[in-house]
């Protein structure tokens, strides 16, 4: 009786505990076969023609970048396995995976997430001929990642309500704008702007501006797109957004339906921050040749033109022009800021919460 029970016990444990393991082993084979082409296709760290497949962790939306990645596959024959997510969460995943990461390339929406992966020592240095394509301000100092496109903070303005638009953030504190400014408090680009403001003016200076801004009762919206729509509809007079939202609206509704215009900020004003999306190659990648081929493609004329025409961002490669009526990147004179200094967003959120601009 006793041994009988014991045997049954073992059986139960085996069933409930080991089912997953058994399933795991079963699946192991299929996983290694699917990865095989990628691993065997190209010698690591060789300059031989890249092939096989690469896994891209992308903080950039699949909707926006997949067509470009398909062009890459068509041009090179390298298959792309796409894993989407939030840039910061993907950075956390990469940090946790360490050397075991299946990722070859990290394509981030934001320089901060790239900096976190760089600081963990997970990137491999990019070759200088790729780094040279992009101005030094838009890549890592150590050459671990490179910007692929830029976005500029602007004021989106309804000219019917605002004949003479402000060009500095301090003008926004004027009582005439009370209740007439739209912003997206939870948006990452807005928060990056505030972080930049803290770097440029110090925490006290930034707090002073934020308190003045809060006193002017700005109207909070869920997303940048909603701010833009509210300005276009005349619900508010102007809004703090990224430059490309206006062009998305024009592309969707036609120029005739759009009243709003972009107002770029004065030279050096903190409101005119330029941030980038960028890309880095994982040191643990077993197909670095193919990973580098993707970076090269994103920085190529074809890739840069795609960003200019499809996401309305600033191409960072010299000689590729942005959307027709955008001022040239070189003429913008953004505030003098090192993008890697924008990594203290936790403190920014704390400050925003304290002055009552983040949450309810």
């Amino acid at each position, binding site marked *: 009786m006793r041994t*009988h029970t014991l045997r049954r016990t073992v059986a139960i444990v085996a069933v*409930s505990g080991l089912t997953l393991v058994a399933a795991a082993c079963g*699946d192991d084979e299929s996983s290694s076969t699917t990865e095989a082409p990628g691993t065997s296709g190209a010698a690591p760290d060789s300059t031989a023609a890249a092939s096989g497949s690469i896994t891209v962790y992308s903080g950039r*939306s699949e909707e926006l970048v997949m067509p470009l990645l398909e062009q890459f596959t068509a041009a090179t024959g390298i298959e792309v396995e796409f894993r989407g997510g*939030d840039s910061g969460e993907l950075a956390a*995943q990469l940090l946790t995976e360490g050397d075991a990461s299946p990722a070859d390339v990290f394509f981030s929406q934001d320089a901060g997430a790239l900096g976190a992966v760089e600081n963990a020592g997970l990137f491999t240095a990019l070759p200088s001929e790729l780094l040279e394509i992009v101005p030094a301000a838009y890549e890592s100092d150590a050459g671990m990642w490179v910007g692929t496109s830029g976005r500029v903070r602007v004021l989106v303005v309804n000219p019917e309500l605002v004949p003479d638009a402000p060009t500095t953030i301090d003008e926004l504190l004027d009582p005439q704008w009370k209740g007439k400014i739209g912003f997206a408090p939870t948006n990452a680009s807005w928060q990056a702007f505030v972080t930049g403001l803290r770097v440029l003016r110090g925490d006290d200076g930034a707090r002073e501006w934020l308190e003045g801004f809060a006193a002017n009762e700005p109207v909070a919206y869920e997303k940048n797109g909603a701010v833009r729509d509210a300005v276009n509809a005349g619900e508010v007079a102007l809004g703090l957004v990224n430059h490309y939202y206006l062009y998305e609206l024009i592309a969707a509704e036609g120029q005739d339906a759009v009243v709003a215009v972009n107002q770029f900020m004065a030279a050096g004003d903190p409101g005119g921050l330029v941030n980038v999306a960028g890309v880095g190659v994982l040191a643990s990648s077993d197909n670095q040749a193919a990973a580098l081929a993707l970076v090269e493609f994103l920085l190529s004329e074809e890739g840069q033109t795609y960003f200019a025409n499809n996401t309305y961002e600033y191409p960072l490669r010299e000689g590729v022009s942005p959307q027709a009526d955008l001022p040239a990147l070189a003429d913008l004179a953004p505030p003098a800021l090192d993008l890697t200094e924008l990594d203290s967003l936790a403190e920014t959120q704390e400050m925003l919460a304290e002055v009552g601009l983040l949450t309810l």
Partner: protein
Amino acid sequence: MIGFPRTAVRTRPPASLVLPAAVAALIALAPIWYLADRSLSRGWSEVVDELWRDRTAQLVWRSVLLTAVVTVLCVLIGVTAAWLVERSDLPGRRLLRVAFTLPLAIPSYLSAFAWISWDRELAGFTGAVLVLTLVSFPYVMLPAAAALRHLDPALDDVARSLGRTRWRVAVGLTVRQIRPSIAAGALLVALYVLSDFGAVAAMRYEAFTWVIYGAYRAGFNPARAAILATVLVALALVLVLAEARARGRATTARVGAGTARPHTPVPLGRATPLAWLFSAAVLLPALVFPLWRIGVWLTSYASTDVDLADVGASLRSTLTYAALAAVAATLLAFPVGVLAARHKGPVPAALERSTYVAHALPGIVVAISLVFVGVKLLRPVYLEWPLLVLGYVVLFLPLAVGSVRASVEQSSPRMEEVARSLGSGPMRVLRRVTGPLALPGIGAGAAMVLLATMKELPVTLVLHPTGTDTLATQLWKYTAVSDYANAGPYALALVAFAAVPTALLGIRQRAAHHATPVLSDE
């Protein structure tokens, strides 16, 4: 004979239950391993600094406040709804039972988005309470209804013969008897509210999960996120212990020969319109409104290029993963639930409570924990379906454990004692008596896990096998770029297919009642 029998005894729990339950507890505690490792990676002083901030305390307070208000509202709505569909003579109450269950099919992020895109003014505490209450009251309603159905009306008759009014019987005796079920449901609601990010983010109510997500998304600091997440584990422990207290000593099993007599519905009389009003006041915002909004998206963003084959493929993977998760979670929950229902003492209690702790962690923390465990122990299945299913099990095990425990508790242990006395071994008793007794709970638990898995986003996003999409990840992909034309069909498919197990959950409880074995069947 009528009375409160002992349902749990302080005997040495059999190894045949303890060992598999320990496996379940170990799996459920996997995130704790990660949290401890990460939190201490920078030394204790960092942990103390991080936790010893005014803002940490302030945000914990905001989360606790939200949790308390939502839980109380869910108990009030859930118990009232359960009583109406089980005990009153309200016309159409069977249909209403299904309707009251259906809000479970609507993901909180979808509900929150439906409300906030309709009226921005809802943002803040009010909106967060509204959305979280409307999506989670069924967690109280379902176990409360099941418990009400199982109560022996003979007890009510005794109370009334002693001169109590119907009203006092309803409030005093009935509610006290189903207290364990209410407590179990309230615990699930409370843990869910603590862990929620989707609804509080959309409603811009800054809760504790904000700083955790902020540490990932804005601070790029997973170690900080891990430290902060331990606060949620501590809160979960407090809640789990509080629930054990609230559960009290009351038991719901009946003994006695024969089947319990069916309840005579309590006539509502002039209160009937009030009951209708209550039902409408709950169902309109919880069910009709979000469905109407999805309908608006579908029609106003009429799209020409929605690929139905893609919707079909996502639906298939959603259903496959959800079914696997439901089976795995139920298998693991069975020994834990039976153990908790039948055996008192520190070991069963500790094993059961371990399965609840991770339920207060936001999805992204569980996801990154599984990444940690995956690359350390399960490298071969990293980013393959078994690890994803494991993630779902960690997240949703309590849903199955609670259901199994409740249904076993509602049956008398005397049946098992009789079987033992007739010479059946423990395993045979488990298979032939306890198993069938737990069947309604197993079914309900599996349906709840199925449902929760279908709606789940953060863990799916991080752990899904490369190249497969689920309805939730597709919905996320399109709403992230405000592409509502393409998001609409996925939202509709998600809600429509989640409605199936939900409706079954509402309907099958009735059938399950009749299937419950009683002594006279032996």
